[in-house]
């Protein structure tokens, strides 16, 4: 094989070492599973973040098909100090997509490990490999007429349970908090060991996907949003398909209604009267999802002014806030809960309740109902056409499920976004106690000026929210180091101590969630350096 010259190399790795590692990867995986050419790497570099693509350009992509190959890969990475960035289905749009956190990292794409290892329709769980998509699972369940229901993120069909759970993503059914429903992982550690969490270490155990905690420390969470291992299998619970599913929407005309909406909703969520991850989407999220485009309403630069939003509301029948929820169970259960819910909203007097019968096939109701009942669709990608230009970064602070808090966050976010000429495109995803306040920071990447503005805006959102004691639950790779700082130095020290213990050569995704042995100095080492110097 001729000597290869790469424009992009992993940090601190010479061309010679890189070439030697590539030769080993080829021997292990076969030529076709080691991608180096620019045209093979471009599809991994469609980032939507406010930096040049070059900042997140991979040096190579590897595809593996077996756990043994993954073990072989980490061995080579240790030998040549090659940093590796793992993706499963790789659809992490708005959080960095498939690109690595740092320029030059080698992507390990596990899309070819795509076996549904097991679905147990009685115990209602699945065990899958990383490349399995929700569509694959959906087809399997349909073909085999299994009485089960999936929960997935809005990119549903094309995304996958393992990758989504590794980033602690959410869905819209009663099983919408995906990490909560995860049960048992298999992880290849940096030293090549294969670790099974929970009951997975017990020889002959049939409870790996049944009982989460196992014995002693429960470590599953440690591998999510982290860089301590490469997950090669994951179990998760599936919801039994209920005999009756009743989706509904409640439309609110005024932005200020958010306070009452949340306060009415919280007790209903806490008592499991409404059991699913409810969504409260604002007018612009609705508009984007319904495939409306900003330029059909205004071509003025800057944020979309309120009078236009009001006109959109009037024209389309969408609300300032649009709540989507569903009931699941037997007819009797649904009837009882439906009465409680309609009484609560009627008493309040403001919301307009829309049932499936009333909505028919109207969007966005249709796709929302599908998401809440485990039917894949791609409708929400319409958000990308609201402004256009290919820039999208999720700003997703956690909020208490308390009306006044949601309003405070909404007003703060809107003020900052408008200051930078961008729109407040938002939804709240409602758990009993917390809300994921998800805002799509949409901007035009063809404009250098707007890209810089979006970057400054995102920084200010992080800064100003932090001042109020808020932080995001997940963030794109450009801002992961910044967000790690919001969570305090002790947490970071602990995370780096674990990293040193498990991955001393820093080969697994250095920089993921701000964990990077090369750049992070613990408070203790910083202090001792300071005292050495004095």
């Amino acid at each position, binding site marked *: 094989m001729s000597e290869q010259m*790469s*424009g*992009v190399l992993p940090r601190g790795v010479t061309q010679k070492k890189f070439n030697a590692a590539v030769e080993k990867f080829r021997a292990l995986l076969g030529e076709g599973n080691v991608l180096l*050419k*620019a*045209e*093979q*790497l*471009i*599809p*991994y*570099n*469609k980032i939507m973040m406010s930096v*040049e*693509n*070059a900042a997140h*350009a991979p040096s190579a992509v590897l595809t593996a098909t077996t756990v043994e190959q993954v073990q072989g890969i980490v061995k080579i990475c240790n030998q040549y100090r090659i940093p590796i960035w793992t993706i499963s*289905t*790789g*659809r992490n*749009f708005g959080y960095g*997509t*498939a690109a690595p956190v740092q320029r030059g990292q080698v992507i390990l794409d596990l*899309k070819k490990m795509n076996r549904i290892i097991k679905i147990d329709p009685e115990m209602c769980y699945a065990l899958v490999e990383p490349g399995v998509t929700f*569509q694959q699972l959906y087809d399997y369940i349909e073909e085999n007429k299994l009485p089960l229901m999936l929960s997935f993120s809005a990119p549903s*069909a*094309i995304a996958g349970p393992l990758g989504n759970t590794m980033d602690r993503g959410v869905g819209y059914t009663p099983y919408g908090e995906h990490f909560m429903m995860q049960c048992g992982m298999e992880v290849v550690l940096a030293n090549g060991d294969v670790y099974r969490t929970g009951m997975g270490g017990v020889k002959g155990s049939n409870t790996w996907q049944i009982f989460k905690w196992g014995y002693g420390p429960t470590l599953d969470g440690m591998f999510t949003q982290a860089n301590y291992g490469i997950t090669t299998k994951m179990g998760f619970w599936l919801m039994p398909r209920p005999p009756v599913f009743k989706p509904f929407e409640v439309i609110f005309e005024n932005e200020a209604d958010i306070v009452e909406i949340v306060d009415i909703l919280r007790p209903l969520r806490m008592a499991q009267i409404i059991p699913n991850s409810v969504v409260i989407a604002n007018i612009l999220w609705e508009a984007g999802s319904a*495939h409306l485009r900003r*330029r*059909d309403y205004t*071509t003025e630069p800057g944020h979309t002014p309120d009078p236009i939003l009001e006109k959109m509301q009037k024209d389309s029948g969408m609300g300032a806030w649009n709540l989507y929820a569903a009931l699941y169970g037997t007819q009797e259960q649904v009837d009882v809960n439906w009465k409680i819910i309609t009484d609560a909203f009627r008493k309040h007097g403001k919301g307009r309740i829309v049932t499936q019968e009333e909505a028919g096939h109207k969007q966005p109701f249709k796709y929302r109902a599908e998401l809440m009942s485990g039917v*894949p*669709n*791609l*409708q929400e*990608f*319409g*958000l*990308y*056409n609201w*402004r*256009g*230009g*290919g820039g999208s970064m999720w700003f997703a602070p956690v909020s208490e499920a308390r009306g006044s808090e949601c309003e405070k966050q909404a007003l703060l976010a809107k003020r900052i976004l408008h200051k930078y000429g961008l729109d407040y495109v938002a939804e709240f995803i409602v758990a009993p106690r917390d809300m994921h306040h998800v805002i799509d920071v949409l901007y*035009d*990447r*063809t*404009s*250098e000026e707007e890209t810089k503005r979006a970057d400054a805006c995102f920084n200010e959102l992080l800064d100003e929210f932090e001042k109020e004691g808020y932080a995001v639950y997940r963030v794109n790779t450009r801002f992961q180091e910044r967000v790690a700082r919001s969570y305090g130095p002790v947490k970071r020290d602990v995370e780096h101590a674990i990293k040193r213990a498990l991955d001393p050569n820093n080969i697994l995704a250095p920089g993921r969630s701000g964990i990077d042995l090369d750049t992070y100095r613990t408070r203790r080492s910083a202090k001792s350096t300071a005292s050495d110097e004095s």
Partner: protein
Amino acid sequence: MSVDRRFVLKSMVLGGAAGVVLSRSVPVLAGVPPSHSGIRPALALVGSGAAEAAFLQGARAAAGTELPVQQMDRGLDCMLDFEHQLRAGRPMQVIGLLDDAAATLVLDLARSAGARVHWLGQHTAEAGSTRHRLLNADLAEGCARQLSRHLHACGAGFTLNEERQGSVAPARQLAGPARSGAGSVQWAAGIGSLLATLGTRPTMMPRVSVQGTLLSGSFVSFSIEV
């Protein structure tokens, strides 16, 4: 520009909805057929607007052959069909101009199907000017310059930023001032022509004459090979 290499399009703007019609037939390009070397496109994916129509006309004119066309929407069935084609094991070259949503899906499906992407362009058109951000591989060498010459000839102002995947060089920045008033969808025809002949020696790009003004919008162009 040689008359042989020229074709004329007229755009009709009908109360917001725009269409482009070919006002006279296109002579097959003189000289070496553009598909003589390089990759020959086998399929064009487009949406339904005027820019997409201009893209298609540009591509057809430059390719000098029939170019099958698939109208794309963001619907699940359409995307799954496309994925099926990508995975059918037949070598295929796909070019296209789509809106942001559809293009995001198409490109990521291409990634997971193991496709190669030689050109990825993000384009914004608005009052009298266009902006282009390209991410390219070697096969597209020289295309950014060619496109900038075309955009300059079109008369609308433009900015063009080109990153070469895997290059240590900083992004190339090109720009041209507006020389004539409104501008047109010629930019899209130019890109269609470039992508249809990617990897061949540079050809002159077709000119599009439009009635009506440049239509604002945001688009993604690509050349995918499986």
